[in-house]
């Protein structure tokens, strides 16, 4: 048991290392997508959600170094044990984030901040060596059309100075993955940048009407006879401009308390 705990701890530690995209992979043809991530803390109640921080990282690459296909739509689905709550959390209008630097975005929407991270995009300009844009990510609680939950992921690169907003709309569904964040990559991304890898840490605790709340909550629904178990933590689905669609699941462990 101690060995199992040590292995789990090691796995979690690896998973939490930034940039170590060593998660699960799926390959189709020369295209490989991977998903990595985790939640913290690992020890969770069996039967009720507790505030957690979720880290999701993904990578898209080709095994032969050929240019990446452009992602047109991405979907991140969280396991049914997770809960996304925005009740009482301030929202930021998407327009306030458009063409804003990171500092301006924070200045304008700090109250709605739900996460941060980073993004790398490979830029493929014809007849030119690809280069990578490193952007910092800020996630803000938003509100979609009709008042639905949304997460505006603001990306800003100082070199070159570009800014864009990835609009993730949140929907809830039945099944193993009940919370789904979907973003159609906007035209604002432009023709040449191709999403290569990202890492987003979502976490926000706030108080609403005297109650402490968390943007994300989760439980560890293992059978009573077990103190730890594995769960399919998240699924990422990428749709590419060539109509290919690849999904990858991320399985993580949790410990019941």
């Amino acid at each position: 048991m101690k060995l199992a705990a040590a292995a789990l701890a090691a796995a979690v530690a690896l998973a939490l290392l930034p940039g170590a995209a060593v998660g699960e992979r799926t390959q189709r043809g020369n295209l490989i997508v991977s998903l990595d991530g985790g939640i913290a803390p690992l020890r969770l109640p069996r039967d009720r959600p507790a505030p957690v921080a979720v880290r999701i990282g993904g990578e898209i690459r080709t095994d032969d170094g050929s240019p990446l296909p452009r992602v047109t739509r991405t979907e991140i689905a969280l396991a049914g044990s997770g809960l996304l709550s925005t009740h009482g959390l301030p929202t930021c209008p998407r327009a306030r984030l458009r063409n804003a630097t990171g500092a301006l975005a924070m200045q304008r929407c700090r109250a709605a901040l739900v996460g941060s991270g980073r993004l790398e995009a490979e830029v493929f300009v014809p007849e030119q060596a690809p280069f990578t844009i490193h952007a910092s990510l800020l996630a803000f609680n938003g509100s979609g059309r009709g008042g639905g939950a949304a997460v505006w992921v603001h990306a800003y690169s100082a070199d070159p100075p570009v800014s864009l907003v990835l609009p993730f709309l949140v929907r809830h569904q039945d099944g193993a993955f009940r919370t789904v964040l979907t973003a159609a990559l906007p035209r604002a991304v432009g023709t040449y940048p191709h999403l290569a890898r990202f890492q987003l840490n979502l976490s926000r605790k706030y108080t609403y009407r005297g109650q402490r709340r968390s943007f994300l909550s989760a439980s560890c629904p293992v059978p009573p006879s077990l103190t730890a178990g594995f769960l399919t933590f998240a699924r990422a689905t990428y749709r590419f401009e060539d109509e290919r669609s690849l999904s990858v699941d991320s399985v993580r462990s949790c410990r019941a308390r």
Partner: protein
Amino acid sequence: MRKNRFTRPYLAVLLAMCSVWLMLASPASAAFDISAFDGTTPLQGGEPATQAGSHPFLASTSFSFSTYFTPGGREWPTGTLKDAVVDLPAGLSANSAAYPTCTDLKLVGASGGEPDCPESSQVGVLILKAGGGTAPFNQVGGLYNMERPGGATAVLGANIAGSLIHLVAGIRTGGDYGVRISSRNTPQTVVVEGATVILWGTPAAPAFDSQRRPTAGPSTAALRPFLTLPTSCLGPLRTDLHVTTWEGEADSSFFLSHDDTTPVPNPIGTTGCNTLGFSPALRAHPTTSLADSPSGLEADLHFPQDDFDDPDKMVEAQLRDAVATLPEGIAVNPAAANGLQGCSAADVGLTSAPGATPIAYTEAAAHCPDASKVGSVEIGTPLLDHQVRGDVYLATPFDNPFGSLLAFYVAVDDGESGIVVKLAGGVEADPASGRLTATFTESPQLPFEDLRLDFFGGPGGLLRTPATCGTYSTASSLTPWSAPDSGPPATPSDTYSIEQAPTGGVCPRSPAEQPHVPSFDAGAISPVAGADSPFVADLRREDGSQQFSSLALTPPRGLVAKLAGVSTCADSALATARARTGREEERAPSCPAASRVGSVAVGAGAGFTPFYLGGSLYLASPYKGAPLSLAIVVPALAGPFDLGTIVVRAAIQVDPRSAQITVESDPIPSILQGIPLDVRSLQLRLDRPGFTLNPTSCEPTAVSGQLLSTLGQGAPLRSRFQLGECGRLGFAPKLRLSLRGRTGRNAHPALTAVLTPRPDDANVAGISVSLPPSMLLAQEHIRGVCTRARFAARACPPDSVYGSAEARTPLLDQPLSGDVYLRSSDNRLPDLAVMLRGPDSQPIELELSGRIDSAQGGIRIAFAAAPDAPVSRLVLRMRGGRDGLLVNARGICLARPRARVRLRAQNGKRATRSPRLRTSCR
């Protein structure tokens, strides 16, 4: 009146004349004419002598005039003889030098009436038919070989009843060079009805002893022939007589040689040409053994005359046509044209039309200008006791007997013998190789022993030796007058060696071994930065090196030409120039003066003193894909030669990135009408006032290029180039940045940048503009990016255009304008590429490449390598709105943003600006 007669069946050779006092005037009613004219050259047995080149026993000729009877019964000739001229058949010669001479004093005689001349000087007999009596009577006298006064070839004299009669022999200059014997100004007191002259074939022969004076003994002279028949077998020989009287009347007559032994006079000529010998020797070689050097030519034709003095043997056949072919490699040396003139048809006395045959001249000596003298001639003949010397003159091109570019005259005016010779030699130069072939035709039928032509050598030698060492031969084809009976032409040749390189060292044995290391100097006359100064490029090669062909020159960056106000020479004008003679082009240039931008001097020819051709450089229209071109127009006038007009185009390529020009010439002609241009130096001088501007950088650089030889070998050219006084050039350009369009957050403003340098400042070398961090790159508006390949092909897609630009420069009349693209690059981001293009008449293209990156969070655009060319105003307009590459991260009216601008000058000076971006904010 001219008549021919066959009244007597004899072959005639010489004319005899006598004189008596005129007693009565002839009546005006009776017309003067020659009643008889005939002659013969028999063998000793009486039959006609016909063997060509042989010596007849004698020659006898006689003539008589028509007469009338007075009422008193006296017979008078119808005219009083004044001048009588006999033209002997060409080729019939009398060798007066073979016998001793008599003086006039002795011819008069001391004993009153009988001459005291030595018997060995008697060469014949004169029989005079005198009139004025009731019947004509003959007076006989010996005919003596007289001392020759200056100016006469030979003089024969007789003393008839105390009257001295002189027959003066000369050469028929300008025609067939036969012997002409004349007696002029016969005293009117002499009544001549006719005469017979008998010349002895070998006067010393005992057979004539009986015809000498009764008191004389046998001749003590050597037995040498006096008369020789022609060495040609061309049919009957013609003898002409021309007579004029004191009364002003004239008459002519002639007879053809004929056989008297047939019942009907039968014209016959010389025969047996096939038995004549013809064994000439040729020596013809350059005057130097140096390769590729100016040279003369020594040519000596030797005709053996061993049997000339043997009365029993025939003489050597005489030269009729000569063709000499110099070896390939020996060609006309253009350097010889320095100070050279041509001898015109009028100068030489040519009476036949250029190109017409037979060639005919006046009898007067040639009066060619000294500047046309290109050599000397020396003729040795056994007929004279001295060498005959003369000169060789260059004939005026196309105004010569051949109507050809190259020809020369051999002119002899021998004051001692009175012989005047004018011969023309035609020269053909192979249009591809320049190989020379000289031709003489219809040479005089005279017995030459040596004919030596020396064409002058020295630094301005007429010829240029082969460029490589080796053994060479001059070939010839010599045709005698005895042809075709005597067989094929003789073909003597002369072989010689070219052994030394002109500048020392190893002498190349093949063209490829010739060095190709031209010297090259180029630079500005005034080496001051930014100044307008003539630019000179000077190219030279040594003798013995490979010849120039095409040239590519790249002046240093920043050396630019002010095309404003300069027109271009149209292609049609250049075509006209090509078709014109050099003199026409020189007199009225085909290109407009407004298109002239410089001059060119071409040094042509081997040696230390090449001939310099002057020409002009014109700005011309686009050529071979280049936006501009130069036209090198050189009237090829070299001395008397007009070889047309040389037009060489040179494309002016403009490097669109640096504005550095490269001039690439077409091949320079190496030969014109068979005359090698043999370019030794080429100086190009762009000297139109204010046309060329120096760079404003003082960094050391170079004028570089490549010279291709006619063998296709390339030689690099490099001449150091550096200017001074860069420090005096200021640098204070103005830059105005303005934003148009909406000013709020998320707006995509249009950016306009206007750069205005000061006149006479150093030119801008680089500029960097950092926009405020509040302006981001609107990547969603980045649609197309032009690849470098398509950009180079000027085929960028429309969606890669993001703006426009316009540059005004004092160099051009029209501004350059074009689009602004995003273009692939080696940088992280695509470059902002500006393509500027001039008007269609001057389609110069310039590229400005701006690197896009970021500095302190803002967009930075850096144009690092601007051309070193003056710009009066540069406007860059980036589109806004949906096509805008910029987006406001915040409203720009809140805090008027500033840009940071760094400027770098070509002379190293720097300037920094922080201009506020102009907006429409109020």
